[in-house]
């Protein structure tokens, strides 16, 4: 049963990725201008011969179905085309930048989930002033554009207090020793990860609180109390676990948004990931590279969602296909 459920989700994921590939194909042809020029990252100023070469290289002189087949075939071989702006294959550019984004997005994800669950728990358990404080904090972060949180963070923690670096992933001065190198990256990671995570922390906190309050009147809670479990134990061992499941589902849904939000955070902090690459691609009108990033990011999100599904089935024995 469980295996079948996961297989179905896997098929779903493959379908989503395929749809993104088709979307990329269609959008390149719907967009104003010549697809060859878009792929070359040119706005029409370059010479005829070059554009004709690009057209032949991508089979743009072939009929549409053939073009789609070629495009699909290329993507399956991890060929995302060539960036004429950066003079390198798109797949190589993206592959090189992917680890930095994964590090940032994953840190932000873990951070937001941990803090969100903690805040939601405190708000639901102690109510009163704590509840009020948590709801003010989450309302505030929910309403703040993340790029602006980043800039304000730079003003306070980098410029005023000089605690944290504002740009990049590594110090300009070379650092000696493996441990020091890791510490250096972590030092650079703090502000971007916090910036990206706080918005989602607000979502998770609100959700966790609501979920706990929904679980509280249920029978199993009263049963646990009647069996003599202390209030603290009932909250932590019984209610927390059950209330966490809807949050986990939401976390899977938000994964895509966190990865998408990294384009803003990476732009603010000059973090050398694919979000920053996407921003550069937008600036240079390197649209084929932008579409490649869109595809890779979507694939990453599908994989994260699959992982959440597996975790869900492992955590909740009731998770059966509906």
């Amino acid at each position, binding site marked *: 049963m469980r295996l079948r459920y996961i297989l179905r989700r896997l098929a*779903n994921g493959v*379908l*989503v990725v395929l*749809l*993104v590939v088709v979307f990329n194909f269609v*959008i*390149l042809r719907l*967009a*104003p201008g010549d697809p060859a020029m*878009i792929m070359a990252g040119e706005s029409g100023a370059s010479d005829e011969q070059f554009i004709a070469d690009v057209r032949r290289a991508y089979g743009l002189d072939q009929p549409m179905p053939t073009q789609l087949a070629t495009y699909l075939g290329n993507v399956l071989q991890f060929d995302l085309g060539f960036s004429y702006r950066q003079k390198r294959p798109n797949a190589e550019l993206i592959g090189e930048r992917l680890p930095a984004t994964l590090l940032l997005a994953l840190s932000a994800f873990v951070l937001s989930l941990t803090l969100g669950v903690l805040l939601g728990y405190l708000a639901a358990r102690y109510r009163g002033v704590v509840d009020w404080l948590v709801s003010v904090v989450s*309302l*505030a972060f*929910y*309403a*703040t*554009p*993340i*790029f*602006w949180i980043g*800039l*304000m963070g*730079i*003003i306070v923690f980098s*410029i005023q207090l000089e605690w944290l670096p504002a740009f990049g992933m590594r110090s300009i001065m070379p650092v000696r020793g493996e441990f020091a190198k890791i510490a250096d990256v972590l030092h650079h990671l703090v502000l971007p990860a916090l910036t990206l995570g706080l918005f989602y922390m607000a979502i998770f906190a609100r959700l966790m609180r*609501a979920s706990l*309050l929904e679980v509280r009147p249920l029978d199993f809670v009263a049963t646990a109390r009647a069996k003599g479990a202390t209030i603290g134990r009932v909250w932590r061992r019984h209610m927390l676990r059950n209330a966490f499941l809807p949050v986990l589902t939401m976390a899977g*849904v938000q994964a*895509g*948004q966190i*990865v*998408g*939000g990294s*384009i*803003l955070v990476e*732009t*603010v902090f000059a973090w050398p990931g694919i979000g920053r690459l*996407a*921003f550069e691609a*937008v*600036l240079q*009108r390197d*649209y084929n590279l*932008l*579409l490649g*990033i*869109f595809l890779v*990011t*979507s694939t990453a*999100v*599908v994989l994260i*969602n699959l992982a959440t599904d597996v975790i869900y089935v492992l955590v909740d024995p009731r998770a059966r296909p509906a």
Partner: protein
Amino acid sequence: MTAFQRFRTNLAACVGLAILAAMVLLAATAPLIFPTSPWEMVGEPYLRPLEGPYLLGTDMLGRDIAAGIAHGARVSLMLALVATVAATGLGILLGAFAGYCGGAVDEVVMRATEFFQTIPSFLLAVVLVALFSPSILSIVVAIAVVSWPGVARLVRGQFLSLRQAEFVQAALVLGEPTWRIIFRQILPNAIGPVIVTASLMVATAILLESSLSFLGLGDPDLMSWGYMIGASRNLIRDAWWMCTFPGVAIFLTVLSINLVGDGLGDALNPRLTA
């Protein structure tokens, strides 16, 4: 208590409404308070707040930041409103047919919403606006395209449960045409939660629009909050005020809309209040 009375007793919602009203007023009167174009270089560049005759200072080109914020309010509110109307309309239409017809239509629409909710929606918006070149139309379309699935799922759920209701069965027996049953019978009964979702969507749309224009994907003819922040972010070390104040404007507007939206939700559906 009526919904209006419940809303009135909700302090947070009233504060939100007051801030929102002030923002709308600012947007409406921007051409009167700041008759010169916000792109006009009116004073010396790099004036700090209150240093010259300009309340919030000037930017690197000597443009009045307060004027930019006032004119930006028009752009942000208008774009967000239009995008929300478009997304809500699309969501209602698709959700209604999916919920009412069921079967293959339902399957296709639900798969589509799943698709849009899985992929990184902000990146999709960036792709759409970048490829179709930034303009009011492309921005509105991009925001609507990434926002409709939530409404569609909500409306579908409402239709699924209301389709079996007696008044719908009665309308069927009376031989009312399908479109009439959908839009005149079921929809008015399902509209409450949709209004709440739509009002909260305006807030998300403002965040999306400002994020796009922050990346340089705003309409080049329109002054917007995101553009102001994006254009001055590299000067943050010397001129904090240039990107701080537009951000405050975004924050206050989005916050107030969220407060009003939550208040509306509580007022229209008192059972759900914890």
